[in-house]
């Protein structure tokens, strides 16, 4: 069975389509794997054994009838618990939603089901996607399969860990400030934050509406592209959805060559706070791209230094409003309703009991930033910074096709190290946040292990909005060259669980 779980999604789909293996066998192999390792990893909050097997059976039946299968039919997937799933618990990593069973599917969930993708279950995450370590989950932290005492990144640590632990070949994340890319980087997997508006947010439990973007995660660039194509596209239920064709990402991943491309290295993403081994692998990647025929250009984006402060005003502000609906009236937790307390008191007691510390901190911070008297100085200014950052990107993309940087300044840090030091935690998203603020597309893929700790380092590629295909072109080229150099994918070097 080890063999089945180590296959790529593309290979698995082909094997199912050809009849070499059934979708049920594939699903069962992954369910068994989850059973075997998830006590250690804690990647899943809910495993939907019945749902997965019945979806797999449907694919097998379809094949038996001679119907054409989609490119990912029968491939198992780990779904971040931030997307609603009809009839399947959805908690968003929070106590306040414990036991909530949504009466509707997110558009993304529907698309996965329509594609014949087998949803194995819901993955662990920082509560309401607020965090960079998955330690903020109300259901315990997830371990990094490379070293279970270290964080798998966040907020989508469960999805990334599930990939790295071979519990699923595909996973879904959401990226508000780096929650797909940073977990990808620290677990040696691939993750893409598509252009804002590319993947429907309908059914994505909002953290920060103007920054949140669902996206694909996998172990290879091609698998990521296949999943990207399955979930992206216009959705009339999301007013911020892009009504335009999805860029040809699968074709770009297959093509995977960079000859003649101009690639910019952002000079601001370096210096103090960047781990030496991370910079070493990054610099090697730059050289590799040069060798592959790309022209490397240094670019400067001076406003990026204000990205982190702007992000920590905009995201909490929107979150303070988005999370107001968790009031103990219509769904979720209700605490303290003893018949004498008022609705106001019950709401306040429930939110106190149901939200974790980071969520409360951000709600208060956001409430502060939106308060009259502070709005202009904080929220208003943060939105101006957003404009400046977009201008920096525009200027850079006028001269280059993509930008590259390390995905995150350091490799995976130990669980607990930054848990009560919000500012230190926030630094994990230093390189990823500008793309969320500007709404463009970005990928993280493995580019080696840091020599000092033997932990994965991520290379970030950033493309202009609507040019997501460029990520896959560059990512495909880097991946192929590195696998050649190493003789195997990086994940093979991870210790067995």
């Amino acid at each position, binding site marked *: 069975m080890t063999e089945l779980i180590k296959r790529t999604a593309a290979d698995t789909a082909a094997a199912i389509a050809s009849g070499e293996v059934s979708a049920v066998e594939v699903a069962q192999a992954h369910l068994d794997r989850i059973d075997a390792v998830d006590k250690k990893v804690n990647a899943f909050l809910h495993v939907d054994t019945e749902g997965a097997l019945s979806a797999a059976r449907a694919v097998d039946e379809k094949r038996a009838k001679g119907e054409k299968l989609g490119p990912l039919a029968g491939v198992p997937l780990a779904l971040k618990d931030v*997307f*609603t799933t009809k009839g399947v618990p*959805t908690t*968003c990593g929070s106590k306040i*939603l414990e036991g*909530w069973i*949504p*009466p*509707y599917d*997110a558009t993304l969930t529907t698309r996965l089901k329509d594609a014949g993708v087998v949803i194995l279950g819901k993955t662990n995450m920082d509560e309401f996607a607020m965090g960079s370590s998955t330690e903020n989950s109300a259901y315990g932290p997830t371990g990094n399969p490379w070293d279970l005492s270290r964080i798998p990144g966040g907020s989508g640590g469960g999805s990334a860990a599930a990939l790295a632990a071979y519990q699923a070949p595909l996973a879904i994340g959401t990226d508000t400030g780096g929650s797909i890319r940073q977990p990808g980087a620290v677990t040696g997997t691939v993750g893409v934050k598509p252009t804002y508006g590319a993947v429907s*947010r*309908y*059914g*994505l*439990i*909002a953290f*920060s*509406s*103007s920054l949140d973007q669902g996206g694909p995660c996998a172990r290879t660039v091609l698998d990521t592209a296949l999943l990207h194509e399955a979930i992206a596209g216009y959705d*009339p*239920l*999301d*007013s*911020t959805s892009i009504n335009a064709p999805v860029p040809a990402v699968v074709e770009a991943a297959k093509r995977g060559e960079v000859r003649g491309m101009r690639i910019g290295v952002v000079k601001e993403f370096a210096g103090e706070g960047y781990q030496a081994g991370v910079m070493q692998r990054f610099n090697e990647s730059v050289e590799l791209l040069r060798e592959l025929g790309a022209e490397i250009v240094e670019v400067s984006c001076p406003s990026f230094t204000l990205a982190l402060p702007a992000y920590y005003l905009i995201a909490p*502000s*929107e979150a*303070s*409003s988005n999370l*107001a*609906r*968790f*009031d103990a*009236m*219509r*769904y979720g937790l209700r605490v303290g309703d003893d*018949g004498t307390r008022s*609705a*106001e008191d019950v*709401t306040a007691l429930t939110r106190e009991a149901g939200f974790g510390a980071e969520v409360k901190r951000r709600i208060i911070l956001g*409430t502060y930033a*939106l*308060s*009259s008297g502070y*709005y202009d100085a904080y*929220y208003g200014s943060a939105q101006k910074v957003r404009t400046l950052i977009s201008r920096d990107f525009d200027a850079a993309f006028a001269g280059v096709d993509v930008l590259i940087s390390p995905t995150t300044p350091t490799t995976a840090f130990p669980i607990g190290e930054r848990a009560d030091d919000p500012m230190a935690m926030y630094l994990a998203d230093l390189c990823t946040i500008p793309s969320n603020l500007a709404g463009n597309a970005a990928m993280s893929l493995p580019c080696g292990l840091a020599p000092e700790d033997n932990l994965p380092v991520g290379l970030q590629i950033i493309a202009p909005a609507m040019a997501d295909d460029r990520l896959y072109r560059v990512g495909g080229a880097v991946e192929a060259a590195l696998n050649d150099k190493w003789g195997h994918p990086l994940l093979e070097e991870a210790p067995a669980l």
Partner: protein
Amino acid sequence: MSVISLVSYEDALASYDPVMGLEVHVELGTKTKMFCGCSTELGAEPNSQTCPTCLGLPGSLPVVNAIGVESAIKIGLALNCEIAEWCRFARKNYFYPDMPKNFQTSQYDEPIAFNGYLDVQLEDGSTFRVEIERAHMEEDTGKSSHIGGATGRIHGASHSLLDYNRAGIPLIEIVTKPIEGAGERAPEVAKAYVAELRELIKALDVSEARMDKGQMRCDVNLSLRPHGREKFGTRSETKNVNSLRSVERAARFEIRRHATVLDEGGTIIQETRHFHEEDGSTTAGRIKDNAEDYRYFPEPDLVPIAPARDWVEELRAGLPELPRVRRARLQGEWGLSDKDMQSVLNAGAVQPILDTIAAGTNAEQARKWWMGEVARNANETGTELSEQPITPAQVARIAALVAEGKLNDKLAKQVIAAVLAGEGEPDAVIEARGLAVVSDDSALGAAVDQAIAENGAIADKIRDGKIAAVGALVGAVMKTTRGQADAAKVKDLILAKLGVEA
């Protein structure tokens, strides 16, 4: 504060100058809610017209109803507003159980329509211009019923039950600029404004604007300042005043209450107040302290609205005839003086008259009966003209019978009274009461002969050309026929018998 201790309205106005602000919420008559596809039909089972979006379920998103925007623009145009080139929705953040997201999706500093005015006509026929600050789009809340307290009131209730069918129904909030200079007529201006706005909304066909069904709700903000002072006083906000009469009464009450407080050297507290239909008073609600902070910010789940100028112009060109214009046209068509038209308006008789004309009567007859017998009944019973238990078709039938000579005016009045009294259709009333005009020529001829014989001197005068004297003979004939004759016909007969050309 008891009503008895209030200073009189006249005394209040002698010392102070009222400044008003009116905020009217209109529920649009769209088929679906403002941000989701749930039906807005009234009378559905509780919570049967809800979806993830209007229940505020985690993950749900809003999408703007195009007709909601179109209606807002139409209202803006009809109110002579500028239409924003670009505007956004904003979130108004506050917790309340009837609001599923705990923020209301509204508009803040970028309303879709702004800087307009509405000319309203007062009872004496003069015009008062009410300046419009803005009209913006937002959504309604759910409905709560309070259980366990007295008569469904919130105070003393043990718990509440929530139905979100109404949550998300489109609302347009129309806000006036401070209305100054109305003086003692402020309450009348308030009522006339809301009445005119209601007519306008109905004419635009964007809402039925039924105040009794909560489709149109008015908040009356009022403050007083001593005569000659420019600075506004502290205002009170009387919420949900839901009939035209109540708007006037609420304004009147608040003027007296404010004056009483100020006269006693007190200060007005900025607070919301509740209006009480029973005695026309208001009582204190929530104090508006500074803790209230709605933390407005642009709604990130919706993109800006930028109404194309050609669309706006198209909507402008398609606006129906507005109430003021229509009234002027009808006045011309009906040939009424300003004073007569104003009486028709004050009596609320425009629509009944139009409906009666549509049922086959001429304008003069329709107006005559509605403004006569029916209006009298409305006055006596203190009810609206439109609520009288007689239909335009019935009035039209009576007018037709008069035109045919089968009823005279006197009889017609009796028929109307009988219909109003619930005695049935006009024809049935005539039948049952035997009210038909005496039209039998021989019987009438005998009555005429008798009258001429008994009034020889008058008959001579008529023969000599004093035709005006014929009235006396007609009266005599009517007396003998107990009124059941057609006066015009009697007159013709008398003149014919006396050989005089009319």
